[in-house]
């Protein structure tokens, strides 16, 4: 990384005291390591619009909300505004009515909606939709059980505001059929569609993944430096197309075939080390909506730490000389340190919004089917991936689909929300998504239709270790080709739009994106440029998991505070709830979880893998 950390400015080192330090009981100079239980509620609330703040943040998207909470707990006086009447900004969870307004604003190129384009909305029977029954994510995401966001959620206690549900069914579309991903030893053993040789190769690869860090293996990867991950898997592990697709696109959730071997392997590993951390599933999602819900949680945390919140309030300009930020509601605030702004909420006539050269095309639809057939028992969501070249359009990039059923709290019973996305651009992207949609429709009609007969032999029924029976999907796939559905699938809602971002696929945001060191003109012929010293955050990346979000928040934090050493460096007092042993686990060593446990976990996994086929 070419970026050199600025030396901490002295003023930043001797910052104002943190929430904890401001407590009278802390006045004796003891270093506060613990956030007192009464934090937040003690703060007298001034009824006036804040005339001064340390940091102004515009946009309540997830990254900005995490940043606000981190700064607030560190002791900064944060004013957090959003031009919308709702939280979440570019990753909001919206009702149908809010979406209608959103589409309108996007197509009118309304300030505050930069970063989106070409929104198409189709609601065949508006009277059938009760707006508030739906929570549609602009940027749906799942969180890996072992990930930086998961650690942060527990550490910050924001998880207490949220409900998380598990997701374990990852389907890969192959040969006109959905194959369910086989990732456990039992699954691989019982899958009759796999030959013994393939099983052995898969096992060998999974073992390799956990010993990836050994010198031999690193050297091995290095020797394939100029090859693709697909070649590597084929060459080295004798895996076939379907298995490679499953590993790269389903386990790895890669949005592109162009991925380096180390990156591809780390994405597969990410899935495997997340398995069995909180249960037998790799990922989770928050109920009632994804990032839109999680940002509300962080905003509340920031508010508890003293941040001021103002919706319906858009930044109009920030004058670097007077340090005065002006807002659409006629108010203004004096900002002593920095202004951070989401590109979507850039002030009118902004000159320095970062160039956004990457696209994500999304197709979101609500169907009148529960789609339970795709979900694991007791779960309400699933992931379906269409690998490259698996569709009639010969798609260059995979299509990723998140399936969210009624149990997710985002749609009524017997309905389901499908989120399709691709990093393909323009009209081609929309054709790819439509092709994938047709396949999904065929598949769910076939799988859910009563009396649909496939002639099955006894060996086609597989009894899984937990007693559940699974029908051999290869056989179903063959019949699928001849299947003519008796009914049509009802689409209640369909929305397609393009989202722009400066973050490349797989890219973790680089700090150069936030580079404000270069002198920018602060005025031009017509007057003061409204954003010459504004730090812009990013539009959400294409990544379907939350990975990268915490990194970006940390980079911004570092930009403001000078270092990310004390990013969420808070330790909440233990609740010590009625000796409930379960809760005692909560405030333990979350910091240590990632590093220490990973090793242990890998070892356990390896032990489990030590058997002969």
């Amino acid at each position, binding site marked *: 990384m070419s970026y050199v950390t600025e030396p901490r400015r002295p003023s930043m080192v001797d910052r104002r005291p943190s929430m904890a330090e401001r407590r009278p009981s802390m006045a004796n100079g003891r270093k506060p390591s613990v956030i007192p239980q009464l934090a937040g*509620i003690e703060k007298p609330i001034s009824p006036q619009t804040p005339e001064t703040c340390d940091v102004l943040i515009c946009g309540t998207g997830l990254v900005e909300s995490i940043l606000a909470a981190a700064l607030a707990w560190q002791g900064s006086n944060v004013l957090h505004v959003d031009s919308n009447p709702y939280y979440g900004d570019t990753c909001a969870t919206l009702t149908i009515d809010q979406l209608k307004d959103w589409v309108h604003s996007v197509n009118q190129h309304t300030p505050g909606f930069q970063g989106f384009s070409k929104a198409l909305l189709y609601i065949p029977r508006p009277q059938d939709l009760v707006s508030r029954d739906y929570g549609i994510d602009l940027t749906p995401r799942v969180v890996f059980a072992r990930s930086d966001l998961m650690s942060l959620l527990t550490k910050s*206690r924001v998880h207490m505001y949220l409900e*998380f*549900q598990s997701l374990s069914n990852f389907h890969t579309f192959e040969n006109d059929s959905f194959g369910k991903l086989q990732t456990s030893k039992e699954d691989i053993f019982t899958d009759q569609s796999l030959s013994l040789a393939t099983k052995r190769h898969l096992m060998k690869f999974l073992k390799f993944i956990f010993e990836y860090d050994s010198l031999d293996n690193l050297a091995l990867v290095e020797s394939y430096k100029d090859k693709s991950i697909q070649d590597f898997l084929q060459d080295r592990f004798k895996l076939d197309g379907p298995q490679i697709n499953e590993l790269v696109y389903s386990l790895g959730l890669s949005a592109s075939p162009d991925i380096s071997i180390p990156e591809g392997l780390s994405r597969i590993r990410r899935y495997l080390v997340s398995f*069995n951390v*909180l249960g037998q599933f790799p990922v989770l999602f928050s109920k009632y909506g994804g990032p839109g819900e999680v940002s509300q949680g962080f*905003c509340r945390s920031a508010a508890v730490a003293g941040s001021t919140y103002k919706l319906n309030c858009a930044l109009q300009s920030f004058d670097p000389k007077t340090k005065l930020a002006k807002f659409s509601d006629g108010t203004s605030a004096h900002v002593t340190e920095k202004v951070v702004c989401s590109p979507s909420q850039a002030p009118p006539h902004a000159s320095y919004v970062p160039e956004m050269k990457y696209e994500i095309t999304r197709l979101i639809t609500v169907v009148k089917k529960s789609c339970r057939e795709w979900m694991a028992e007791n779960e309400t969501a699933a992931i379906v991936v269409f690998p490259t070249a698996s569709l009639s359009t010969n798609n260059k990039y995979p299509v990723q689909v998140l399936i969210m059923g009624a149990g997710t709290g985002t749609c009524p019973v017997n309905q389901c929300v499908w989120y399709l996305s691709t990093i393909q651009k323009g009209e081609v992207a929309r054709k790819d998504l439509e092709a994938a949609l047709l396949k999904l429709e065929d598949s769910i009609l076939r799988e859910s239709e009563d009396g649909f007969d496939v002639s099955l032999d006894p060996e086609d029924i597989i009894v899984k270790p937990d007693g559940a029976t699974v029908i051999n999907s290869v056989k179903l796939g063959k019949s699928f080709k001849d299947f003519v559905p008796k009914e049509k699938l009802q689409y209640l809602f369909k929305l397609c739009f393009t989202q722009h971002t400066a973050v490349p696929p797989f890219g973790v945001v680089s700090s150069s994106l936030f580079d404000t060191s270069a002198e920018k003109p602060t005025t031009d012929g017509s007057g003061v440029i409204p954003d010459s010293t504004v730090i812009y955050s990013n539009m959400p990346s294409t990544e379907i998991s939350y990975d990268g979000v915490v990194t970006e928040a940390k980079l911004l934090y570092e930009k403001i505070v000078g270092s990310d050493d004390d990013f969420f460096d808070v330790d909440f007092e233990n609740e010590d709830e009625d000796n*409930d042993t*379960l*809760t005692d686990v909560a405030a333990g060593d979350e910091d240590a979880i990632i590093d220490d446990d990973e090793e242990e976990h890998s070892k356990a996994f390896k032990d489990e893998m030590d058997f002969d086929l």
Partner: protein
Amino acid sequence: MSASQGRTTTAVKLVLLGEAAVGKSSLVLRFVNNDFEENKEPTIGAAFLTQKCTIGERTIKFEIWDTAGQERFASLAPMYYRNAQAALVVYDITKPASFIKARHWVKELREQATKGIVIALCGNKYDLTVNDEAEEDSGEVSETSKRKVSVNEGQTLAEEEGLMFFETSAKTAYNVNEVFLAIGKKIPEASQNGGANPSRGESQANGRIDLSAPVSSEDSNACAC
């Protein structure tokens, strides 16, 4: 698994609403700090405040959400109202404007919150009027009284909207526990399903994953319960 074995513990999410400075936080702190029941120490997390109380055979664990100032610019998140089973709408009996605001909050609750939410209306700062002897006799608001909202007005609003009604004083603790006990009694026994935070033992029954209790690697069947 806990001390209250044999008793059902119902977790109840309770939200506070009301104009700034009517004493929302004081009411809660009075309730929570009063060393209520057998609970030795009040538990107030930075996330929300919790307080248990026992009503008959049931233990109610209140999870009390303060607005954290987000109501100031009408910026409460939908998350705030979600699955709230009870609400405390507070006004200051010496400030008519706060009573008008209380009507607004009741309306907001009807729109945003779960159907069947138990709402208690609290006219706070009763202590400021206890010296007005005249009012106790007549029920009328005398001109010299600090009281600006009569008991009748509060009661009428409560009747119209089907709310419980109390006049309280966080300062003297007058009626404070009573409000929470009354709310607790009104919470239906089987309401914890889909409610705020089901207590942790039963959490996985409805698909909710407890993030604070990672399964160990050996215990591979933990999620199958």
